[in-house]
């Protein structure tokens, strides 16, 4: 796994990959358990569940935002590794890498917008 563009920050990338993984594990287990114990049948139920608060904070929205940011960082590092492992043509590798990064930046803005308006 040689990432030609980012090999100078290998250690911090390694840490981000693990840290975001742990964040996603905790989120997945917690939210699935709570979701399974919440009766949701209609749009109103779903919206209320998503906006439910704890100590005045929309905890599910905040956790979902954390999860998504972790997911995008995790995907960025993971897909970079895959691209640099299998695409040896340098121009194609560079193009795919930039397309992937652009997509993830777009997803970040899009999901923040979705959560903000939910």
């Amino acid at each position, binding site marked *: 796994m040689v990432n030609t563009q980012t090999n100078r920050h290998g250690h911090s990338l390694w840490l981000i990959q*693990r840290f975001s*993984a742990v964040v996603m*594990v905790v989120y997945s287990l917690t939210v699935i358990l709570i979701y399974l114990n919440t009766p949701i049948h209609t749009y109103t139920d*779903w919206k209320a569940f998503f906006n439910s608060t704890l100590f005045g904070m929309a905890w599910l929205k905040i956790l979902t935002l954390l999860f998504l940011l972790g997911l995008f960082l995790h995907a960025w590092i993971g*897909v970079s590794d895959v691209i640099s492992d299998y695409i040896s043509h340098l121009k194609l590798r560079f193009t795919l890498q930039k397309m992937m990064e652009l997509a993830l930046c777009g*997803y970040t803005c899009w*999901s923040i917008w979705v959560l903000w308006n939910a």
Partner: protein
Amino acid sequence: MRISSGKPQPNNKQGNANKSGNLRRKAVVNDRPKNLKLTTIGLPLPALISILHRASGVILFLVIPCFIWALQMSLTSDEGYQTVQNVMQCWLVKLMLLGIAWAYIHHFLAGLRHLAHDAHWWEGLAQARSTSKLVLTLSFVLTIIVGVKLW
């Protein structure tokens, strides 16, 4: 092995480093096996887990926009919520969701196994094999449970 070069080699540290660099590069280019018969090489169970971890990761990356779309639709209006519900009734979509669920569960469990390896747990060959079996079995069982919930 000696590389004969027309240029005179400078007799300092820099020059020697370059020379060995050239040697190494030449060796890499010339000695690579060219007809690697992939079908004759067995894939050990831990290697299968590893490549499936990678494949499932790529699948999950590709389906990210579908889920943000579904989240947006289901949260913006009642009609949008109904649309997502209707889309999820289609058997093809259910089948794809089942595949994605498998990818998520496998990536999740194989990832936990990798985290355990980072902490130097279960590093022996026997343990690597048994935890591989555990990951495969558990992800299969959990995927079946998701399938039952879906249908």
